[in-house]
């Protein structure tokens, strides 16, 4: 009897996370619905003008969707090569002596609050770009650099684990066949750890697209389609955090709808993640 009660109790605890997801979906999409109804789904998604205080108000988030994509892509361009190569260093080059220090360092990088990254970016990276390149520094580039550093720990950790999970025989076999260390790593080890590395990258993309506080401090937040990487950009997350406190009525609903779009992006990413993991399982058997 006691056993059964305990089991059901544990089951209920497990179901809470499902309940939480359901609640979040319900309230975000329900909150978004009035805005979509007033503005129309298509104008909302493809409109280039966001003027909530004009009469009549305009709510179009196309530029922000593109902005989020640009900034995330930029973060990947910086974060993925650096992250994957650092993971290779951690897995295959790092001397035993400094390994503990290095992994502690990566954890610290993951733990630093995003607000600190944003502050650093605002005080140093933005003026640096303004002084050395064109534009005023509040730009796609600044946001990409800050986010690129922020996604590093995610990519490094996941990639390192999957590199280490590749059976030793692969690597040693390649060496025995006369390949150099680098060839063995890049043509044998990395392809074998491909799905793990991809998972790390997708998780990194998730972190980049959802990051808020750091981006809002360095991206400039102008609602335009940036033509170059030195132009300002507003992401979906920035739009929410900038205006949520102030918004009321349809404006507030439109902010929630912005969150809903972001949520859909994350769901799509999870889907991609599922496909990658499924692929790896079939490859493994």
């Amino acid at each position, binding site marked *: 009897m006691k056993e059964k009660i305990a089991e059901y109790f544990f089951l209920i605890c497990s179901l809470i996370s499902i309940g939480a997801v359901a609640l979040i979906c319900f309230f975000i999409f329900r909150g978004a619905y009035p805005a979509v109804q007033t503005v129309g789904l298509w104008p909302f998604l493809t409109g280039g003008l966001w003027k909530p205080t004009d009469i009549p108000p305009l709510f179009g988030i196309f530029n922000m969707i593109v902005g989020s994509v640009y900034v995330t892509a930029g973060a990947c361009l910086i974060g993925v090569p650096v992250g994957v190569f650092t993971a290779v260093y951690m897995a295959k080059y790092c001397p035993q002596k400094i390994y503990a220090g290095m992994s502690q360092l990566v954890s610290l990088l993951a733990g630093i609050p995003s607000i600190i990254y944003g502050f650093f970016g605002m005080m140093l990276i933005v003026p640096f770009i303004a002084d050395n390149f064109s534009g005023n520094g509040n730009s796609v580039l600044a946001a990409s650099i800050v986010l690129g550093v922020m996604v590093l720990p995610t990519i490094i950790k996941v990639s390192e684990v999957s590199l280490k999970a590749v059976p030793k025989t692969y690597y040693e076999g390649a060496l025995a066949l006369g390949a150099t260390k680098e060839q063995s790593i890049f043509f044998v080890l990395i392809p074998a750890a491909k799905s793990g590395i991809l998972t790390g990258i997708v998780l990194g993309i998730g972190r980049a697209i959802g990051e808020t506080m750091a981006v809002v401090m360095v991206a400039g*937040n102008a609602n335009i389609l940036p033509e170059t990487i030195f132009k300002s950009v507003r992401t979906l997350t920035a739009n929410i955090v900038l205006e949520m406190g*102030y918004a009321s009525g349809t404006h507030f609903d439109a902010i929630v709808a912005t969150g809903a779009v972001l949520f859909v992006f994350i769901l799509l990413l999870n889907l991609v993640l599922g496909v990658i993991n499924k692929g790896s399982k079939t490859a493994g058997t």
Partner: protein
Amino acid sequence: MEKILYFVFAAGVSLFFNVSCGGNVNNEITVISREESSGTRGAFDELIKISDGKINMLFREAIIVSSTDEAAFKTEVDKRAIAYTSIGSVTGKIKTLAVDGVEANEENVKRGAYKIFRPFVAGVPGSGSSPLARDFISYLVSRQGQKIVVTAGYIAPNDEASVYSASGLAGKLTLSGSTSVEKIMERLKEEYVKFNPDVKVEINYTGSTAGIKDCLSGKSNIVMSSRAFKADEKEKLEGYAFALDAIAVIVNKNNPIDEISSEMVTKIFKGEIRSWSDVK
């Protein structure tokens, strides 16, 4: 494979040199504004005619920040920036411009020479407001309250205010509204609580418009607005202006200009003038 890598490497190097040797001789103005529906922006846009009450014509590439202090931060680190901020947020690290030859200071606001200012208004619902809320407001506009306003760097609208004496009331008072009012309101709250130790004052800085909404829905007792109430809001709320705040036009310390005409400000913020060399 190797060829691809060599190519990527070469492309990267050449891109780097192209960009960095392109140099930076431009003199492009960095326009910094606030998010839509900020009280400061609402007042500024109206006063310098960026907005005609219906359509907002702010330069589309303007940098948007979420507070007056962030505007000051960004101006401090950007040599080509122009922004506007509450006079209380002006520090020694940025330069305030005289507009049409008039400095932004108390005297000029009071005699009506400096036109870009707005009131800080404390409002209560016209009906059903608590005695505690009214007592707090009577402190704000009293001689003691006005003195705090002046020491905080703002302008007291009320020169001949009466003296406030402790009411002996107790309870919890919730305020919500403009972020611009924060610096002054924290001090006023501290002093008020010294008079009435049994009162607990809680302040949420959510923005003027949201504050009005909170106050009307009963979420808070008093709204602090950094702009005058609009016509429809005046019907439902009783407002008391307890401070005047000049909105200063600010630029970087290294900017050579010291004064600017109001038409020029309008043109810059509309994006019609893009270079400092065109600013006279």
